[in-house]
């Protein structure tokens, strides 16, 4: 069964709380780098909630935009990797084989969304913090590039559960950690190959747009614009 995983981010619901960031860190063995490294722009988080100041309108306001790997169909990162460490898998995901990565950082350089993060050093989980590490995915070592995988381990888990019960994956059965936890339900995940899935219906909304659509990267992450209320 072929899948086309996609995410929809409804900016009309997003409150900017950062629960997605914490959930991602917990799920994907993402290290904390500390104040000094963070000051050098070396945060390892795979999803960020970018905050913009809306100064075009009367009265300043903040606008939130969660940004993660767009899982581009025509990904600029893939074509520049000299060792095929980042590649397109059968579900159309932009996957990483960490063990192949030699750390050229060409991929990050070529990503218009700046969602790739690099392990500038070996990160240490002081004992017993390492007890929390998920056994479903590895801890990446120094010199390796990493980024959001759409929680590929969760997709895998759902596929195995479905295969064991000899049924297709149900709509809503897979949710990456960020989507699962999002308090206002701004994030939605699903299979756009299935025309009846919730995300397929959601993406028929004319509010939809993709980041930097003009680059032709064909992201699998769609955004839904904030709505403007009537009146005041």
């Amino acid at each position: 069964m072929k899948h086309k995983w996609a995410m929809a981010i409804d900016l009309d619901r997003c409150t900017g709380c950062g629960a997605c960031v914490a959930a991602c860190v917990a799920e994907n063995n993402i290290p904390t780098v500390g104040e000094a490294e963070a000051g050098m722009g070396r945060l390892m988080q795979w999803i960020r909630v970018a905050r913009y100041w809306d100064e075009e309108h009367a009265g300043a306001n903040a606008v939130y935009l969660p940004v993660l790997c767009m899982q581009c169909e025509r990904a600029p990162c893939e074509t520049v990797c000299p060792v095929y460490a980042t590649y397109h898998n059968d579900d159309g995901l932009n996957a990483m084989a960490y063990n192949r990565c030699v750390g050229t950082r060409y991929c990050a350089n070529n990503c218009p969304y700046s969602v790739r993060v690099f392990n500038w050093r070996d990160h240490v989980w002081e004992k017993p913090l390492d007890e929390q590490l998920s056994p479903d995915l590895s801890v990446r070592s120094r010199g390796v590039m990493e980024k959001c995988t759409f929680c590929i381990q969760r997709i895998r888990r759902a596929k195995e559960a479905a295969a064991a019960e000899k049924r297709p994956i149900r709509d809503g059965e897979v949710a990456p950690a960020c989507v699962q936890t999002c308090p206002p339900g701004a994030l939605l995940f699903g299979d756009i190959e299935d025309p009846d899935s919730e995300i397929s219906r959601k993406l028929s909304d004319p509010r939809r747009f993709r980041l930097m659509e003009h680059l032709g990267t064909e992201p699998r992450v769609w955004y839904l614009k904030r709505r403007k209320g009537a009146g005041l």
Partner: protein
Amino acid sequence: MLDRRQFLKLGGAAAFATLFGGCEKTRKQIIPFVLPPENQVLGEALWYASACGQCPAGCGVVVRVSEGRAKKIEGNPLHPVNRGRLCARGQAALQALYHQERLSGPMKASGPRGSGNWQPVSWEEALSLLMTRLKNVRAEAPASLLMLTEPMRGHEGLVAGRFMKAFGSPHRVAWDPFGRDALLAACEAVHGVRDLPEYDIANARYLLSFSGDFLETWVSPVHYAEAYGRMRGSRETVRGKFLHFGPRLSMTAASADRYLQIAPGTEGVVALGISHVAIRDGLTPPAAAAGNLMAAGLSAYSPEAVEKRTGVRASDLARAAKEFFGNQPGLAIGGTACGSGAAGVFNHAAVELLNALSGSAGLPGGVSFPDRSRAYARYGAERSLLAPPPESGYAAVRDAAGKMRKGTFRMAILAGSSNPAFTLPPAMKFAEALSNVPFAVAFASFLDETSSLADLVLPVPTPMETWGDDIAPVGHGGAVTLRQPVVEPFRDARSMADVLLAAAAELGGESARALPWKSMRDCIEKNYDGPGERLEKALRDGGVFPSDAAPLRAMRKGAVLPPKAPREAAGAVDPGKYPLALHLYPSTALYDGRGANLPWLQELPDPLTTAMWRNWVELNPKTAERMGLADGDGVTIASPHGKITAHVAFNPGLAPDVAAMPTGQGHSRYGRAAVGRGENPFSLLPEAPEGGASGLALQAGRVALEKTALPTRLVRFAHPEGQWKLSNLM
């Protein structure tokens, strides 16, 4: 019935079966060196339901456990409070469980108290030390025992309450720096119910927020954020609209359709202005007996008069009134800033007056008061021990500190995350007062500012390792949440309730009669295990979720009077010397400071300033320019009560002449992640809240700023993709 041993055995067996049985079902393969991640074979994990303990909201969680270790926390989809969702602080509870600085055994202070020198002792020795003291105190002066904790709910609260009563001491004090005293008083005055209101945001068509912070830290942020999402986007034809009044552009304000800046502390004036327009223009239902209101003082709040005091244009007020009363059901919600200082009760009552006038109170999409005491009705008068009102307990703490200084107490029991030595104003001199108590025992997982002052520290398990029950302050729907250990205690820890139960049995007499349970687990089992497999199901579900909704408490019908404006406090601070209004707000990541020892939360960029790992003070860029301050500059912030330093961070949506700071940083003890991150904003607060307000005056003080060279810098998370055009985003 499933006892604990069986439960763990079954868990172990299931884990074993999935680990080894799993290999047969899935493909067998040697994992190649170059491994695409989707070909990894996964072991299956177990999920256990429990209750979150990171803040007082009381969300239900499920924890993924693999090989006996907790790996991931998610919201419990069955739980009515958070419906499967969880915030960043809830997610980070795992780091507390496996924290490298977690206390691993009892410790006795060696050298002077508070010196930070400890000597590990065995549990036998620690308990015998505790019992010797307890017995002495009970024999000689039982009323000289003080128990100072955070508010405790469920049977844990019952155990603590009964223990103190049977012991013979009335001095049980619960301290919560963000207690909702003003809101409770306002609800009593307006609705006739002294309880937290439940705002049905999901079904509202219109939301008026008055410095509301219900999406970030207030009362039950995940509950309200989940409902907010549904209000915005889950109905076919209605998108609920949201208007925010406040002095600070907060995370919640940023979600509003329109944010209208007001002068600090004038939330109530704005709300009364809206009521004034509604009655003047005949927008409210006639049943609300509106006419009397004008006579009773509302006539003074004409839009023009309100504009002068608050800065909100009269036309905006009029339109807000028209939209709010024309789009019912609607809600008016006040937040932390609204209930602060001398005007706190007035502000909240003015906001609740809008709810009373709207005609939607008690209806879907309106405000209501579901009765949470039903779950514990069998305890009669004692049920307030299990479901206490969410008060700050400020007056009681102050009273206790005074008594400590006078030498009233011979022994103190300290527990909980509200950390009084950190969150109380320094003018109260809590640490000094505590040093007059001859013996202090602290129940704690970490050495924070409070537990460091004890003679004896007894390590407690984290919420993920304990038995207990809980009822959430809002969104509970009558449900009781059950807490069970999802992993075996990772450290040699015993819960406070277990120690108190053991102590009561040893004390005998009245204590033993009042507390007949062997342990908290025994207590939970006896209370929730009826005929059949009730307990097993409840533990599997994460609580007892009744199929019918909790009955609503009766609200006052008929005439409501507008609240009386508070008198200007005598001897107010000189605005010439202290030109800026102080606005302290709970940090989205660290709350009152309890999250500061977790690196995940320290490294979570703040929603507004994107700052992390350090303290800052927000200023309006124009105010800063006038003062000659640039973004990132170091400043000294001085109030009449204290002086701290921080870095400037611009917030273009902050009212001019306001200095806003998040609470939570500035620890002197609490582990490596927490110490050395700036100074503590709580130390700017006065001891006596002005004008008889009963909580901390978080948003009522005044400060002066002075440029100061600091050796540190404020790290911000800039967006690396640069600034795209906003018109493409909206």
